[in-house]
């Protein structure tokens, strides 16, 4: 191959004073403001920030794929030395084919639903000009490289026949097939289960070594970025507010926004009775807002007159940069929410609210039966939070629906509320029972009626659930609105006029209208940004301590589960694999499955354990493995006994039960053993 000799540009991707605007309502609204950044060859650069700060616009600008109404106002983009904006059609196509690749969120949509996987991957090689015969074999090899076990059969399938993790692997295979200089990953693992996320991240780490591509990694998840990237940039309102080596930024931030962002996360095993999470007051400036001073000034507790009027430059602080007039004072940023919280110890006086005995749920009929929940028994105390964790398909949602009476359990199971049996379906429950068990959904957008005002939404719940009328209703409405930290001014607004966090508050107010005994919180914060998430978690904790309500918390974010839960149940294929007090479940000994779940979570604090890889996909509930349902993926499988006999829930302590053949003491031994040699690979490499 004859290569033309040219000087190697030092940066794989370079933005120079880039400003991008979207045209909305006849006006250009600035989304990126004077953004400059450089990603060196072979470097992994992370871009973090809340939604709406312009992260995805950065990615789309790099490949010149802005939406129709998007426009570059000024500045330039260079990929591998080529000015992206000046390329003609053919040159741009060649650039996309050879130099840059992109993987984004929701792989299910990124793949063409009506073309077989094999042909979609082969297309990359077609673009490279390979003869048809070779394309298929190269596609096969590429799928093998992304650790797809059976590439030949996967190539024959359509995207919808693959799981989310497999789809994302295919997308990564297509992205890396052309051996690009620059790989852009835009929220590549958002929406995937934590175990799958960990696998995909491992894969990217390994392939990065093999292919040597530079990476622009965009994510709202700080821990994921900390795991993957050498350098990180913090984006706020389309401006880079801080940039530097990942570890230094996350351990010693110099911009108040970074400081605040890091404080919003429940970290290091923080729990609700150890104090409130910090929040960031106010909201992100909207696109196109005029920002004469520091974009964060409005929300910054240490901002002064200078911050409001004068835009701070991106100052060099010795190998790192911060756009702040007072970077040395950033860490002294006072808390927006006081940490102290009086949490009455409700558990001391607790009675059981919900008693669930031998509850199962089987879907389907005849030969095609799916056992979504299998023989679950547990008790929920008043004022207690029970966290439900497990991968998708583990039966969390079905279990919650049975509590609510949306799905009747199979005959034989019993659910008792305050000692009285709860009818299996909603239609047979008394109004008293209906208002006692309520839910807060993941997505407040679809849970609230868009046509109604806040007053009407919450008022209706008060009428229906609490049976209130007239002045009494108004009084309670005001009380409820205040309890969820909304103001009377919000009452006349409609959901679309509220931000995500405010909408979730309305949803919470609605569920609390009838003084519930149990509230099911189904991923209550996963649609929200971290700063808003912290506020909602604080609110849930406060309401619990004042109302003595019990929560059943479903979340894939173990940090949140740990913060809010008193007890945790780990579900796998509809069975409880482990249940116990939150701290005991997190401290161990754990069930091998819990151990794998915990080790899959990237950790911001650098106290990383070696990761336990789960092989294979979660089996279908229609055809669960024999014996212990986890044996097909268990890294600590003993042997034949695991395949023949389902273990009972054994006591590790009287309150902590583990469904495993390995005795708890032995599990503890196995899990305490220091795992040498397998220290974090990226860090070793990057140093």
């Amino acid at each position: 191959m004859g290569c033309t000799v040219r000087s190697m540009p030092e940066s794989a991707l370079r933005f120079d004073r880039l400003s991008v605007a979207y045209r909305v309502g006849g006006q250009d609204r600035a989304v990126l403001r004077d953004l400059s950044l450089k990603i060196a060859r072979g470097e992994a650069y992370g871009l973090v920030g809340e939604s709406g700060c312009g992260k995805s616009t950065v990615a789309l600008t790099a490949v010149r794929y802005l939406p129709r109404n998007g426009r570059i106002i000024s500045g330039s983009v260079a990929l591998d030395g080529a000015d992206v904006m000046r390329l003609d059609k053919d040159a741009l196509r060649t650039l996309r084919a050879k130099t840059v690749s992109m993987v984004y969120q929701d792989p299910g949509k990124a793949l063409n639903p009506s073309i077989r996987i094999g042909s979609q991957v082969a297309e990359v090689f077609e673009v490279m000009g390979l003869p048809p015969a070779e394309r298929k074999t190269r596609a096969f090899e590429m799928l093998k490289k992304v650790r797809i076990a059976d590439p030949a059969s996967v190539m024959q399938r359509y995207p919808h026949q693959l799981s989310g993790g497999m789809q994302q692997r295919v997308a990564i295979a297509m992205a890396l097939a052309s051996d690009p200089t620059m790989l852009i990953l835009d929220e590549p693992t958002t929406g995937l289960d934590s175990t799958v996320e960990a696998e995909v991240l491992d894969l990217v780490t390994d392939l990065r070594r093999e292919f040597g591509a530079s990476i622009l990694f965009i994510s709202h998840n700080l821990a994921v970025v900390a795991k993957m990237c050498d350098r990180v940039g913090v984006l706020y309102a389309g401006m880079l507010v801080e940039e530097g080596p990942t570890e230094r930024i996350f351990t010693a931030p110099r911009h108040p926004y970074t400081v605040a962002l890091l404080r919003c996360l429940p970290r290091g095993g923080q729990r609700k009775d150890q104090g409130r999470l910090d929040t960031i007051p106010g909201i992100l400036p909207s696109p196109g807002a005029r920002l004469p001073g520091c974009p964060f000034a409005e929300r910054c507790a240490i901002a002064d007159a200078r911050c409001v009027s004068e835009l701070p430059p991106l100052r060099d602080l010795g190998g790192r940069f911060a756009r702040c007039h007072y970077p040395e004072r950033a860490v002294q940023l006072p808390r927006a929410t006081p940490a102290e919280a009086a949490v009455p110890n409700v558990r001391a006086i607790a009675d059981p609210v919900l008693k669930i005995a031998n509850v199962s749920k089987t879907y389907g009929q005849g030969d095609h039966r799916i056992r979504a929940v299998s023989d679950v028994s547990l008790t929920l105390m008043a004022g207690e939070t029970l966290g439900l964790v497990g991968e998708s398909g583990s039966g969390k949602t079905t279990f919650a629906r049975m509590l609510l009476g949306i799905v009747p359990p199979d005959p034989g199971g019993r659910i008792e509320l305050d000692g009285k049996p709860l009818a299996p379906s909603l239609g047979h429950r008394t109004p008293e029972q209906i208002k006692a068990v309520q839910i807060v959904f993941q997505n407040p957008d679809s849970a609230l009626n868009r046509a109604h005002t806040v007053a009407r939404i919450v008022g209706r719940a008060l009428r229906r659930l609490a049976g209130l009328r007239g002045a009494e209703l108004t009084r309670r409405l005001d009380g409820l609105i205040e309890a969820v930290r909304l103001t009377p001014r919000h009452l006349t607004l409609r959901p679309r006029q509220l931000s995500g966090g405010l909408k979730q508050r309305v949803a919470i107010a609605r569920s609390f209208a009838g003084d519930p005994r149990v509230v099911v919180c189904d991923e209550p914060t996963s649609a929200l940004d971290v700063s808003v998430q912290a506020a909602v978690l604080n609110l849930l904790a406060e309401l619990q301590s004042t109302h003595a309500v019990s929560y059943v918390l479903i979340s894939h974010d173990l940090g949140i589960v740990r913060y809010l839960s008193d007890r945790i149940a780990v579900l796998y294929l509809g069975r409880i694999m482990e249940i116990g007090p939150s701290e005991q479940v997190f401290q161990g000994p754990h069930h091998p499955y819990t151990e794998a779940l915990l080790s899959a979570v990237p950790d911001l604090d650098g106290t990383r354990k070696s990761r336990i890889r789960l092989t294979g996909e979660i089996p279908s509930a229609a055809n669960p493995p024999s014996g212990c349902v986890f044996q097909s993926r268990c890294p600590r499988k003993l042997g034949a006994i695991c395949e023949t006999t389902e273990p009972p829930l054994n006591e590790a302590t009287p309150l902590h039960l583990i469904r495993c053949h390995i005795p708890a003491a032995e599990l503890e031994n196995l899990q305490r053993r220091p795992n040498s040699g397998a220290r974090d690979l990226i860090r070793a490499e990057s140093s």
Partner: protein
Amino acid sequence: MVFLGSQVLPGSVALSILGPEADPRSVELLNHQLGVDRPLLVQWFGWIWHFLHGDMGLSYVHQAPVSPMVMQALGYSLKLAAVALLLVVPLGIVGGVVAALKVNRPLDRIISLGGLSATVLPEFVSGIILILVLGIWLHWLPISAAWPNGADPLTQIYYLVLPSLPLVLVLFGYISRMARAGMIEAVESDYTRTAVLKGLTWGQVVWRHVLRNALLPTVTVVVTQAGYLMGGLVVIETLFRYPGIGSLIFTAATQKDFPILESGVFVVGTIFTMTTFLADLSYSVLNPRIRMGTGQ
């Protein structure tokens, strides 16, 4: 339904056959001969019974078997519908695709607005205008749909173009709008972005990745609209004095010739149901997600 509906209409069959001046006694006699004085249920079950055996009965007015009349008329109608579809499907899809690729540009506006205005124009209005302009003023096309006896297929099609144009106008709006909406959605989708970022040419992207997904819903609309065509034929066939099933039903209804009316409507209904079924079938054939079932 049709049976009941036609029974409650005023007037008796014999009266309409014999004319208003007829002797009441002969009216009664004829009614008896035709069997229309029997109880309704008996008449209905009798008709159904025979129909299921392939016997559509005798026409009251023509005193001839219904089946050949209906079948012949159906043949004519299907020819007309086929010509209309042959014209409108490519036009509609190309129109929609072009509009979507030039979205919000003048060409898109012309196609979208034109399609919309054509759709809301009733067939008898557009039909008359087309007859006037294309048939009478310009003499481009014959104004009658009835071709000379023994005409070859091409000539037949030539005669059918003008009658099918009003139908084309109505359907063009529907089809092009569906195609346009499907295209826009597909062009803005993530998989199209994937394809573009692979480095494919825009032509390859549209041809391989966009069109198939974009036109899926359109296919369903086209096939369903084929059923609608049969309904639209009543007006057109009457207007162009074309001996299809529409005008057969229309005449039968005015003459209270129930066997023809019922059989005709039944046949049209069957065709409508079948096309809807075909629409679902073609959708599932084209869409792998439905073809394979949702299981993994």
